[in-house]
C-alpha cells in the first residue's frame, strides 16, 4: 500500500507544471549542471528507479531548495515540534472532551450541557486556521496574554495546541455525551443498580468503561486530523514543524521534500492506526486479533 502511495505521488508531482529551478535565472550551462547534479536530466522512470533504490536504504534524498540539507535531517529536526504540538492537542482534546461530554450527559438540559453542545457544534464547524487566527488576534494581539507565534516556551504552546485541539475536543465531547447517555439507560447498569452498589461504583465500573469504548475508535481518525491540522496551525503560528515544511515544499515544488514528507506522514499514520487497533483489542474483550 505504501508502495502504491509512493508511486502515485512520485508521478503526480512530476505532472505539476514547472520544476524546482524554473524560477531561477541561470546560464544554460549552469542549469544543465544542476539538472545533472540532481538527476533531473534522466528519464522519469529512471529517476523513479533510483528514488526507490535510495529509499530502501532509508535515504529520502536531498532538498532541492534548502541547500545542502537532506530530507532526513529536516524530519529529524522538525518532527519533534510537530509531535509535541500534536500530543499536547490530543491530550487536551481527550481530557477536556471527555470531561465535558460525561458531565453534560449527567446534567442534560442544564447550562453546562448547553455550553457543551454549542462548543461541539462550533468546534466541528469552524476550521482550525480560523480558530487559530481568531485566538491569535484575541489573546495575543488584543489582550497580550500570550505570545503571538513561535514555539519556544510553555506559554507559546497554549494557543496553537488549543487551535489544533478544538475540532477533536468537539467531536470527543459529542461522542462521549451520546455514549454516556446510552449507557445510563443500559440494562447492565440496571443490573448493577439492582445489586445495591453505590452510585460511584456504578459509574466507575459499569458506565464509564462501556461509554469510553466508542471513543477509542475515534483515536485513529483523530491522529489523522491532528496531522492535517498541523499543516495549517504550524503555518499560522510560525512553528518550525513538519507541517510547515510540507506546505512550503509544495509551493516550492521541492520534489524530494514533498516525497519524503508524504512517505513519512503515511508511514506514521499506518503505525498509529495499527496502535489504535491494538488498543482496541486490549480494551474490548469481544474483539480478538485473528
Amino acid at each position: 500500500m505504501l508502495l502504491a502511495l509512493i508511486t502515485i505521488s512520485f508521478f503526480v508531482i512530476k505532472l505539476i507544471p514547472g520544476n524546482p529551478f524554473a524560477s531561477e535565472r541561470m546560464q544554460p550551462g549552469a542549469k544543465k549542471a544542476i539538472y545533472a547534479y540532481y538527476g533531473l536530466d534522466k528519464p522519469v522512470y529512471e529517476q523513479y528507479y533510483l528514488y526507490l533504490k535510495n529509499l530502501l536504504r532509508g535515504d529520502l534524498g536531498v532538498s532541492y531548495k534548502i541547500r545542502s540539507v537532506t530530507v532526513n535531517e529536516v524530519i529529524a529536526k522538525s518532527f519533534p515540534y510537530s509531535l509535541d504540538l500534536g500530543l499536547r492537542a490530543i491530550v487536551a482534546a481527550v481530557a477536556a472532551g471527555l470531561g465535558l461530554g460525561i458531565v453534560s450527559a449527567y446534567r442534560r438540559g442544564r447550562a453546562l450541557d448547553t455550553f457543551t453542545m454549542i462548543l461541539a457544534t462550533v468546534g466541528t464547524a469552524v476550521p482550525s486556521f480560523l480558530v487559530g487566527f481568531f485566538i491569535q488576534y484575541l489573546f495575543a494581539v488584543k489582550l497580550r496574554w500570550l505570545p503571538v507565534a513561535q514555539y519556544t516556551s510553555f506559554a507559546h504552546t497554549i494557543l496553537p495546541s488549543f487551535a489544533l485541539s478544538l475540532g477533536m475536543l468537539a467531536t470527543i465531547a459529542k461522542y462521549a455525551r451520546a455514549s454516556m447517555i446510552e449507557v445510563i439507560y443500559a440494562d447492565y447498569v440496571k443490573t448493577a443498580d439492582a445489586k445495591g452498589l453505590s452510585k460511584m461504583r456504578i459509574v466507575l465500573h459499569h458506565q464509564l468503561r462501556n461509554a469510553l469504548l466508542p471513543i477509542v475508535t475515534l483515536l485513529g481518525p483523530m491522529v489523522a486530523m491532528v496531522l492535517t491540522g498541523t499543516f495549517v496551525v504550524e503555518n499560522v503560528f510560525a512553528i518550525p514543524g513538519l507541517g510547515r515544511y510540507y506546505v512550503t515544499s509544495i509551493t516550492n515544488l521541492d520534489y524530494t521534500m514533498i516525497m519524503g514528507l508524504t512517505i513519512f506522514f503515511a508511514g506514521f499514520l499506518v503505525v498509529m492506526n495499527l496502535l489504535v487497533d491494538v488498543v482496541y483489542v486490549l480494551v474490548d474483550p469481544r474483539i480478538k486479533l485473528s
Partner: protein
Amino acid sequence: MSDAILEVSHFGVSFHTYAGEVQAVRDVSFRVSRGEVVAIVGESGSGKSVLTQSLVRLLPDPPARVAAGGRVRFEGEDISGYSFRRLKSVKGSRIAYVFQDPMTSLNPLARIGDQVMEGVVYHGLMGRKRAYAYALELLRDAGIRDPERRMGQYPHELSGGMRQRVMIAIALAMRPALLVADEPTTALDVTTQAQILATLKELNRSRGMSIILITHDMGIVAGIARRVIVMYGGKVVESGSVEEIFERSRHPYTRSLLGSVPRLDADKGRELDFIVGSPPDMLRPPAGCPFSPRCAYAMALCAEHPPAESPVSPTHSSWCWLLHPGAARILESFARRYPDRIGTEAV
C-alpha cells in the same frame, strides 16, 4: 396476614415525557407472602415491569417518578420513602432481580466471575477468595455445569440461556428473601425456558425464597405460580389463586387473555381468538376501567367510573362493574359466549 413479605398499596408510577405524563402504573395494591410464587401477567405495556422495578426505584428519575402516597412495606419495613443510599441495603441483599433480556443485562466488559462476586464483595460479606468459591457454588446452583471455566469468560462467550443462569446466580448471591423475575424466559428458546423455570421452582422450594414472576405466557403461570395478578393499563384488574384465575375468572380481560391462548386440541382451521383493539394510550388513560374500550361487555358506566374491588372469595378479587349486584343479567350472556371457559358457579 402476618407472613406477608411484601405489601404494596396505592402504588403509582408515571413517566414525564415531552408529550406529557404517562401514567404507567396507577393505584396498584398487592401482597406477596413468604415463600410464595406470584405471577404478574398482562400484555406489553401494562405496567408489570415498571411496577416491580419501581419498588426499589431502579428506573432513572427523571423520567420515571414514583407517585406520592403509595406504600411499599417489605418485611414489615416501609421502604417507600427510602433514599438511594438507604435502598442500597435492600437491593440485591433482600430483593433481587432477574431481567428480561440476558443478552444486554450483563456488563459486556466484565468477566462473569467478577459480576457474580461483585455484590457480596462490595457489601463486605466476604473477601475475594471466599467469594470466588461461593460464586462457583452459585453458578452451579443456577444450573451451570462447568462454572470454573465460565468464571473467567465474558458475557459474549455464553449463550442466552447460560447468561440468564448467570443473572440468576447474581440475583441469588446475597440470599434475597424476594426474587423478581421479569420475563426471565421470553428471550430464550422453549427447552431453555423449561430448564430456567425448573431452576426457579427448585430455588423457591429449597430456599423458601418468594418469587414474583412477570410473564405474559399463561402456560408458565400455570406451571409455577400459586397466585396470579392480572394487570391491564397500569392497573390490577384481577387477582386470585391459579385455580381461581384459570377456572373461575370473573374479569372479561382475564377471560379474553385465557381465550387467546392457542390450544393444541382446537379444531383445525379455527382462527385464534384475539382481543379486538389495542392497549390504552397511557398519556390519556380512560377515566373508568382501562379495559372498557375493548371490552365486549362494557357499559356506559365502565368508561366513566373506575370499578371498585369486588371480592369473589377471600383470595380472589376482581375489579369489574359486572360483579356489581345490578349486573347479574349481563353475566348470563357472558356465559353463553365462553361456554368452555366459564365455571357453572360463575352464573
